[in-house]
C-alpha cells in the first residue's frame, strides 16, 4: 500500500499503517446483532419479559401434557369448587377445571395475539411500503383509507367485523388485524420517507441498483425495526383486545377455554367466587406485561441513539 499520509515536515516515515489507524482499542469484533443481543440481555426487565413469554409458549405448546384435566370436561356435580384439592384453581360453573382452562387459554392467547399482529403487519407493511416508496396518488389513496381504519376505535372496528363473520378464532384474528394495520402502515411509511432520503439509498441508486433491490436491501431493513418493535409490544395489546372481545361476548365461542371467556363467566361471581375471574385476569396481566417488557427491551436494544 502506498503511503497516504505524508507531510512537509514528514514525521520520519513513521509507517502509518492501516492496522494502526483502525485498531480502535474499544471496538470489539462484534456483529450488529450480537451487539443488540448483548444490550438486550443486559436489560433485566427485558429478560424477565422474554422469560415470561418463553414460559407461556412452552405452556401453550405442551398444554395437553401440562393440563391435569380436559379443559372442556364438565362435571356438573362439582361446579364452582374453590381452589384446592383435585382442582388446584377450582372449577367453573360447569365444573370444568380452571387450571386446565387457563393452560389451554394460553394457546388461544398466543395464536390470536401473534396471528392478528401478523395480519396487521402484513397489510400494514405492504400498504405502508407502497405508500412510502411510491408516494403521490398511491400514497394519498392508501393514507386516506388508513385514516378511515385508524378512526375506528380498535374494539368497535373488531366488533363490526365479527358481527359480519360470526364468532370464532379466525374472525377475531382477522378483525383485530384489519383494524390495526393502519398504524403499522403509517409507521412504516414515515420510516420509509425518512430512510428513502438517506444517502445510502441514493448511493445504491447511483450504483444502478434496481428499485426492487433498493427496497429490499436498503429501505426495508432500515425501516422495519421500528415496525417490529411496535409489533412486539402490540402482541400484548392484541391479546388484551381478544380477551376483551370474549368478555363482551363477541370473541371466540364461550365454551372455548380462553381467558376473556373465563373472566366473563366469573364476572357475575364477583364477591362470591372471586377465584373465577382472578386467575385468568392474572394470566392476562402477566402475558401483557411480558410483551410490554419485551417490546420495551427491544426498543431500547435497537435504538441507535443508545448505542
Amino acid at each position, binding site marked *: 500500500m502506498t503511503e497516504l499520509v505524508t507531510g512537509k515536515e514528514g514525521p520520519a516515515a513513521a509507517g502509518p499503517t492501516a492496522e494502526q489507524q483502525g485498531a480502535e482499542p474499544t471496538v470489539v469484533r462484534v456483529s450488529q446483532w450480537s451487539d443488540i443481543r448483548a444490550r438486550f440481555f443486559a436489560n433485566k426487565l427485558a429478560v424477565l419479559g422474554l422469560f415470561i413469554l418463553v414460559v407461556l409458549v412452552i405452556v401453550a405448546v405442551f398444554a395437553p401434557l401440562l393440563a391435569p384435566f380436559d379443559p372442556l370436561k364438565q362435571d356438573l356435580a362439582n361446579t364452582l369448587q374453590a381452589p384446592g384439592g383435585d382442582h388446584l384453581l377450582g372449577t367453573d360453573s360447569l365444573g370444568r377445571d380452571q387450571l386446565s382452562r387457563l393452560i389451554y387459554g394460553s394457546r388461544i392467547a398466543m395464536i390470536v395475539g401473534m396471528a392478528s399482529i401478523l395480519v396487521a403487519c402484513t397489510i400494514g407493511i405492504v400498504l405502508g411500503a407502497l405508500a412510502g416508496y411510491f408516494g403521490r396518488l398511491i400514497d394519498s389513496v392508501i393514507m386516506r383509507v388508513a385514516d378511515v381504519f*385508524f378512526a*375506528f*376505535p*380498535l374494539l368497535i372496528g373488531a366488533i363490526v367485523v365479527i358481527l*359480519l363473520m360470526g364468532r370464532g378464532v379466525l374472525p377475531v384474528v382477522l378483525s383485530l388485524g384489519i383494524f390495526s394495520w393502519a398504524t403499522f402502515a403509517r409507521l412504516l411509511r414515515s420510516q420509509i420517507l425518512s430512510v428513502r432520503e438517506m444517502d445510502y439509498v441514493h448511493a445504491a441508486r447511483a450504483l444502478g441498483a434496481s428499485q426492487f433491490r433498493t427496497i429490499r436491501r436498503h429501505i426495508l431493513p432500515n425501516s422495519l425495526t421500528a415496525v417490529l418493535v411496535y409489533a412486539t409490544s402490540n402482541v400484548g395489546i392484541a391479546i388484551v383486545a381478544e380477551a376483551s372481545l370474549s368478555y*363482551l361476548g*363477541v370473541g371466540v365461542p364461550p365454551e372455548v377455554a380462553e381467558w*376473556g371467556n373465563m*373472566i366473563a363467566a366469573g364476572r357475575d361471581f364477583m364477591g362470591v367466587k372471586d377465584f373465577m375471574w382472578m386467575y385468568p385476569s392474572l394470566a392476562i*396481566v402477566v402475558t401483557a406485561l411480558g410483551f410490554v417488557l419485551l417490546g420495551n427491551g427491544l426498543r431500547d436494544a435497537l435504538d441507535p441513539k443508545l448505542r
Partner: protein
Amino acid sequence: MGSDVERLVMGRYVVRRLGQLVVVVLGATMVLFACLFVLPGDPVGQIAGSDKARDPAVIEQLHKQYGLDKPLVVQYGSYVGKLAKGDLGQDYTQGRPVTEILAPKLLNTAKLAVVAIVFDVIIGIAAGVIAAMRRYSVWDITVTFSTTLAIGVPSIVLGMIMQWVFVIKLGWFPLISDGTFNSLILPAFTLAIIDAALVAQIARSTMLEVMGADYVKTAVAKGLSRPVVLLRHILRNSVIPVITYVGISFGALLGGAIITETIFNWDGIGLALVTAIQQNNNPIIVGVVTISVAVFVVLNLIVDLLYAALDPRIRLA
C-alpha cells in the same frame, strides 16, 4: 406577522380538514353499511327480546318505515342525506330517533371521557415530570415500574379489580352508576389509567429530551430561576407531544369505553353499542360508529390546531 393572512391560511386548513372528516366519516359508514347489509337475519323480523316472529304485515310495514325495502345503495344514500342534517335515523326497537336515544348516552360517555382525560393528563404529566426531574432516583424507578405495570394491566382486569376492591370490599363507591360524580370516579379512572401511564412515559421522555435541549441550557445560562426554567421553558415544550398523544388516544378511549362502560354499567354509547349488537339494532350501531369516528376526526383537528397554537413552528398547510 400578517395575522389576516394567517387566519386565512388557518381557515382554509380547517375547511380542508373538515373535508377530510367528511371523507373519513363517509368511508367509515360505507364500510359499516356494507358489513351490516351482509349480515344474516332480518333486523326487524322479531319482536324485541322474545322468540316470537313478527307478523309479516308488521314486518312489511316496518321495512317501509325504516326504508329496509329499498336497495342498499338507496338506503346508504338516504342515510347520508339525513346525516348531513344531523339525523341518524330511527332505532328498531322503539322507533325513536337515534340522536335522541344516543344524545344522553353520548353525554354520559363524554363525561366519562373528559374526566378520564383529566385524570390522564394530571396523573400522567405529574408522574412524568417527577420522574424526569429526579432521574434515576427512587421516584423515577417507581414511575417507570408502575407505568409499565399499568400498561400491562388490561382494563377488563383493572375494572374488575377496582370494582371488587372499592365497591364490594370497601364499599366506597356505588355499584349503580347513577351518573353522579361519585359513580364516575372508578370507570373514569379505569379508562384513564393505561393512557395516564403512556402519558407519563411520553411526558418523561420528552421532558428529558427538552431538558437536554440547547434552549434549556440557554435559559439556565441566562440565570433564570429553576421554577421559571421548568414551567416556561421545559414544561411548555414538553406538553406538545403529550397533547398530540392525548388527541390520538381519544379514539382508543372510545374503544376502551366499551369495556369500562360494560364493567361499570355506565350508560354511554359503548354500552349502547354492545346492547345494540345483541339486538341487531343497526341504526344504533351505525350511529355509534359514525359518532365515534366523527368525534375522533374532529378531536384530531382540534389537536392539530392546538398544536399549531402552542408551537409556532408548525405551519398548517
